[in-house]
């Protein structure tokens, strides 16, 4: 496990925090940090490892959030079932987008993913009979583990942490396994990979589908934790941008990158929210101005992201990072 000690330290620290810290505000920040980091890691499977950059991943996040919320409010079913349904829907939808990726490359694929997420946004906000329309769906709080009605934030930390560890392990697998190398070959030069007998289409579709299903799982947890699903938020392009922003800033195609990126983003956002909450709420947007500029600067000087950049300077090998 050479090179993965920073991630072990990061995840162990996250696991220790709830033992020491009781402050609800800090715990809330940690949960969101882990959740956004995990979602960015899920994006990273498609965007980083498979090289299929999507700006429509909010589609999967929203499918998960809506599946759990609607099953809970309309049919009084458990969000764990919603998790299965959401992941199944996202898998189906991810398959479609995965096959699109075979025909479309670069900017064309990006545009197609944006269009798909926008279609779902309109369906969710206009199909009132199913989704309650643009008002959104409040998720009722039903105490118990089966209904995910957990008031104790420390339990939430561990719940999200399990998912975060799972994502990290998946990305380690992609980094070190035969499948992972094949996927990297497809990303770097699809024609060359094909000529060597790598099943390019199958690998790409599998990566995008896995990425979609895991994003949907994040959506389910997010909806249950926050307690409200707003179609204009969960299906927005802004949210998709948020996923990829964390992954790119941290280091696209690295297992630790998305978590580092999410840490930076959530920390500044939470600080500004606490500082300018209420009346000056508009000023919270400053963090996105900073990260928008950071993205531009990073693309110019270190397009591979922070983790590989730091790694080079410390001569520590975090695994093969990928310049986008």
């Amino acid at each position, binding site marked *: 496990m050479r090179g993965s000690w920073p991630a072990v330290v990061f995840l162990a620290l996250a696991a220790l925090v709830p033992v020491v810290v009781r402050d609800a505000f800090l715990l809330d920040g940690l949960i969101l940090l882990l959740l956004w980091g995990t979602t960015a890691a899920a994006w990273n499977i498609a965007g980083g490892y498979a*090289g299929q*950059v999507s*700006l429509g991943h909010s589609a999967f996040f929203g499918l998960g959030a809506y599946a759990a919320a609607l099953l809970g409010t309309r049919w009084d079913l458990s969000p764990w079932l919603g998790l299965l349904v959401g992941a199944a829907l996202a898998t189906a939808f991810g398959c479609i987008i995965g096959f*699109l990726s075979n*025909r*479309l*490359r*670069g*900017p*064309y694929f*990006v*545009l*197609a993913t*944006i*269009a*798909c997420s*926008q*279609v779902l946004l*309109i*369906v969710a906000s*206009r199909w009132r009979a199913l989704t309650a329309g643009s008002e959104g769906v409040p998720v009722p709080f039903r105490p118990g583990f089966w209904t995910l009605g957990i008031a104790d934030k420390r339990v939430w930390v561990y719940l999200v942490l399990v998912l975060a560890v799972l994502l990290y392990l998946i990305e380690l697998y992609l980094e070190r396994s035969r499948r992972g190398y094949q996927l990297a070959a497809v990303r770097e030069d699809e024609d060359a990979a094909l000529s060597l007998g790598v099943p390019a289409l199958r690998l790409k579709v599998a990566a995008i589908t896995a990425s979609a299903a895991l994003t949907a799982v994040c959506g389910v947890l997010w909806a249950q934790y926050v307690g409200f699903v707003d179609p204009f938020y969960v299906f927005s*392009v*802004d949210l998709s*941008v948020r996923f*990829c*922003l964390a992954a*790119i800033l941290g280091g696209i195609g690295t297992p630790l990158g998305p978590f580092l990126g999410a840490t930076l983003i959530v920390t500044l956002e939470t600080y500004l929210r606490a500082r300018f909450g209420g009346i000056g709420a*508009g*000023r919270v*947007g*400053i963090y*996105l*101005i900073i*990260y*928008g*500029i*950071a*993205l*531009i600067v990073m*693309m*110019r000087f270190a*397009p591979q992201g922070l983790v590989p950049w730091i790694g080079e300077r410390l001569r520590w090998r975090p695994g093969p990072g990928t*310049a*986008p």
Partner: protein
Amino acid sequence: MHTIPQLVVSTILLGGIYALIAVGLTLIFGVMRVVNFAHGEFLMLSMYLAFWAFALLRLDPYVTLVLALPLIFGGGWLSYRLVMRPVVHASHNVQIFTTVGLSIALQNLALVLWTADSQFVRTSYYAVVVRFGSMALNLAQIVAFAVAVLFTAALFAFMRWSYTGKVMRATAQDRHVAALMGIDTSRVFALTWAVGITCVGVAGVLLAPIYPVYPTVGLQFVLIAYVAVVLGGLGDMAGALIASLVVAAVEVVGSYMIGTAWKEVLYLLLFIAILVVRPAGLFGQRGAEAIGT
């Protein structure tokens, strides 16, 4: 069927504005091979420019248009120098993320400066309706269409007959050969970017008296422009023009048949259908989408 002339005229008016947004986008792609994901944000900024000039200086949007032209062009040029120049020869993903970064920064700059509330430019002729027989048309929309058509025509003439236009087209065809022929491609890219931004900026000022402005308003219009640009074939200016009319027709007829609530679904589905069936667009070169250029 007295509604048909009204639908046709509405389509043409709407299509004219969409064309101006789409032409700028497709020009930048054609010459620079960059899809500008911040295109809508420039539209939004120029709408706010018109709003500011109106609210603070009591300037009519059409006066602002004339005064702001050099400002918008200069802003475009500056954004090229600061943001785009270093990545103009970089990979697709670097370019995509750079323009996405620009989009995030500009959108949130507007959010911090003007809040998320919708702002209106309420001119005295806000609700003036012109009647031709059975047709009723908004005055601001007619003016916007007329100016947009003039501007687009001027751009086409510039690209067709001027020396600089020819240089830009040569660079679009093959930037390496163009450079070998002594063309300063770096300056061509700067000019192309600035001209493309000016197109969308002019469209923004023209739209200000018709639509409310808020920080994410760009997305709504730029999505339509993406549809038009892909339908016409990325980089094909005449294609973008015709496709803008097609998209406007889908929107106008769609709103008339099934109501305004679902009209966006129609053109988004049209968009996905084109991407699946013929991604090179109606007039584009087959296979362009598969190599991503």
